[in-house]
């Protein structure tokens, strides 16, 4: 009997292990507004999932809930088999906010060296991460003296330190030129093929084709669709992600 119970628990645990993110009935209220109302979501490991939707659709709030820095009203958020934000996840999950959160009055290298120390990552990660975001020639410049796009890449580089199993990136390519955007998406692809999971929000719909899966959110934190791009295009008959999104919104309105 004991054995049986033990086996079930183990089976259950390994089942949860398969998912990078599992959300059940998540409700978040900010001020007077219900941002997410009963959201369900499952994201498998080792993939890039794009989180698309207009501003105000709750993308950032959803990401904050996954990191465990968002107060939630109800629901269950499980990340890599553990409750979101729990101690054992702190160096396994990396998070980049929309507004860059690094120190303006430190150089690029000093910023990364500090966060590497906090994460317990080796110092060799510092130069590797600086190279990955293409800032090697700015490594000893004060972050305050960088351009907006360079500054946000410092913040992104922090998420590349150590070996995060899940990277949650809130609009990491906003304000970057097309060449750099392509390079970063190539980098995201390499990180995912090494086995990590990425959840990347964007409102640039053409970035959708770089994702394995798409989550389309609409205002009120409703999941309009969670599917591959090709399936979405087939289902809606649209030519690209943007039109698929518009198509789904109008279908939704007709049903409502």
């Amino acid at each position: 009997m004991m054995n049986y119970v033990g086996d079930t628990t183990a089976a259950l645990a390994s089942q949860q292990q398969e998912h990078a993110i599992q959300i059940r009935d998540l409700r978040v209220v900010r001020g007077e507004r219900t941002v997410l109302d009963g959201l369900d979501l499952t994201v498998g490991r080792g993939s890039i999932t794009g989180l698309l939707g207009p501003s105000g659709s709750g993308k950032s709030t959803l990401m904050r809930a996954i990191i465990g820095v968002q107060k939630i009203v109800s629901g269950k958020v499980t990340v890599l088999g553990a409750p979101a934000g729990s101690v054992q996840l702190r160096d396994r999950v990396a998070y980049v906010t929309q507004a860059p959160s690094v120190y303006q009055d430190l150089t690029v290298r000093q910023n990364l060296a500090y966060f590497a120390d906090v994460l317990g990552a080796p110092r060799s990660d510092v130069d590797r991460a600086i190279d990955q975001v293409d800032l090697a020639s700015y490594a000893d410049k004060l972050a305050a003296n960088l351009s907006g796009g360079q500054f946000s890449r410092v913040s992104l580089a922090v998420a590349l330190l150590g070996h995060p199993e899940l990277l949650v990136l809130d609009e990491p390519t906003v304000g970057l030129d097309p060449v750099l955007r392509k390079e970063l998406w190539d980098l995201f692809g390499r990180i995912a093929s090494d086995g990590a999971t990425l959840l990347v929000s964007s409102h640039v719909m053409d970035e959708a084709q770089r994702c394995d899966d798409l989550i389309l959110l609409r205002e009120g934190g409703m999941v309009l669709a969670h599917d591959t791009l090709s399936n979405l295009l087939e289902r809606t008959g649209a030519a690209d992600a943007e039109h698929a999104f518009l198509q789904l919104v109008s279908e939704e309105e007709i049903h409502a």
Partner: protein
Amino acid sequence: MNVRITLATARRVLTQLGHDHRTVAMLLVVPCLLITLMWWVYDGGPVWGQIGPALLVVFPFIMMFLVTSIATLRERTSGTLERLLSMPTRKLDFLLGYALAFGVVAILQAVLASVLAITLLDLEVAGPVALLLTVAVLDALLGVALGLFVSAFAKTEFQVVQFMPALVIPQILLCGLLLPRADLPTVLEVISDVLPLSYAVDAMNEVQRVSEPSVLGDGTVVLAFTFSLLALGATTLRRRTG
């Protein structure tokens, strides 16, 4: 508590200061200049001898309060605090990192201001100089703890400086700088009894006036306020926000 993260945080705060020469000057040079100004105002006379110790407390206290409150407010508003708390950083690592970094600054500040007062400005000190320095550092750390604490109650830098007239200046007026606390009207004396800066100044006065000073009582009160403010400050660092 994680020693690696605490030390990394202290080093990081000091590196930030190193890039900001104006703030370093405000922390180290300005208290010395203000103390010299007061010495000049009283022409180095008997009043200088009476208020000198209080000045060694008050000016560093103000500077530490200002710099700490604004530095930690910036951590809160720039998202770096949230990022650190989503990493393996514990609240205590963060607070102690700051306390340690500004503790180093406080030691430098205390040495500079005390040496200046004792040598060039002829402040007579009956007690041991080492004790004077210890008391000065404790008092500056009180400013650090108060600054860390109030930063939780401000949303902007504009709001945080408003705590100067609200919380700091009343303490300065009642700490015994203008009038010995025993000579204050009874109500004000009672109020000054519950303000931490009063004990900081009492301890400093004791070291200056008594050749074998006993600062255990006042020092303990100052330390207790410092730890309580840090502990209260820790409760205002929230990982999960709305």
